[in-house]
């Protein structure tokens, strides 16, 4: 059963770096698993914890938040705020017993198409053995 399981990943990608990075992966015809539902946001700092909880509630098996490298933020410091906030969300989700593998954060610049594909490949590989995320899911 778990062998055939294809996880769904919701990825919040910042418009200026990570989303452009994923575009680069696309136009460069790099191969990576099609399990991601990308959602472009203006900045990783604009990702409310609500978005993350809601993605899990609506059936995401994994959630990724990705922004510019520290110092590269289009809004100067949005990703620094994100770094703090996401760390807290991670602690909280871990504390209630959600597998910590299901929630990730990354820095992907507009030039790092390869890094983006690597991140997704590894994420899918890690999620597969965990099976579907049912803990926070709404329609169970």
């Amino acid at each position, binding site marked *: 059963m778990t062998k055939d399981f294809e996880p769904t990943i919701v990825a919040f990608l910042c418009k200026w770096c990570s989303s452009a990075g994923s575009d680069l992966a696309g136009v460069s015809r790099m191969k990576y698993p099609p399990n991601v539902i990308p959602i472009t946001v203006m900045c990783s700092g604009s990702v409310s914890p609500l978005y993350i909880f809601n993605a899990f509630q609506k059936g995401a098996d994994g959630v990724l938040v990705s922004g510019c490298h520290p110092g590269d933020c289009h809004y100067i410091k949005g990703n620094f*705020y994100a770094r703090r906030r996401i760390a*807290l969300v991670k602690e909280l989700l871990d504390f209630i*017993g959600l597998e910590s593998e299901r929630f990730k*954060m990354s820095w992907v610049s507009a030039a790092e198409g390869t890094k983006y594909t690597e991140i997704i490949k590894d994420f899918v590989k890690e999620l597969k053995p965990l099976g579907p995320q049912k803990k926070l899911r709404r329609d*169970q």
Partner: protein
Amino acid sequence: MVEMEQLQKEAKEILKQGKVKFVIGYSKGSQNLTATPVFIKKPEHTSRLIWDPTCVQNLVKFIVDDKQKQSREKKPDERPVGIVVKGCDSRAINVLIQEKFIDRDDVYILGLSCEELGVVDEKKIAQKLEGKKIEKIEFAKKNNLIVSTKDGEKKIPVKDVLADRCLECKAHFPVIYDQLFGEETEREVKEPYKSIKKTESQSPKKRWDFWKEQLEKCIRCYACRSICPMCYCDECVADSINMAVTAETTAEEKAQKIKWIERSPALSENIGYHLIRAIHLAGRCIDCGECERACPVDIPLRLLNKKLEKAAHELFDYDVGFDHKKPSLISSFKDEDPEDFIR
């Protein structure tokens, strides 16, 4: 020792002088065991004020209430409100000032030091009495409670029934005040995060099973939100009607409006609500434990907040409510913030 007479005298004085519009304090409860909030407007009523380990409530919520009421009034009385606070409650005031919800001048703080004690936990008292009904509780000399049941009086040392939060309290005296009553005695806290230790050490599966069982009980009465002095938003995401409905809003738009959480007390919705509550209190919760005390179905809500308090302390060296001039936890950052979890 906090002298009750001194507290009453000071309250009387500030009311007489018209320095404050009213004083919020504790008075003897009617039927329940703990003290009850009291709002004193006349100097001659200040003798109703009490102070003992049954004064569990965090009265800062009523400052929030008053502020919100003022915003609706055309000609509000802008004099400060006098308020009796413990150490933990005083830090709540600090957070409110830090977040610019109130000004320092909005409150006249009568700070009380818990000294070597704290406040009691009703559940622990009930446990001690093995289900016997309590008819009366009185605070006696030498830090004992005299509890009367049908089998007579029983002496219980306050130390044995202190609330968990008091056992883990880092600041048992007010950090901000206009008048201080009692001593700023030091006390050692061996394990400031003892209550979450057990849950933390368990496997993710065990932790999940624990929270599943606890959060399934939630009946969404929102007492935890209502009692929290930090929950002052005019609209809460949990209510999910935060969409401007105009004459032009179509039925479809209304149907498609974002609803973060449903009203149903289903597990997924309960978890959604409590996660949001916890994360919104990160770096703001001062651990007064009121959410847990108010919960009618005994969900250990404090643990969620404590976990984030610990994370703020360990990851970002941030302690809540000690300095209202500092920026708040999530409106600030440091270059050296940990990022080992980020790829």
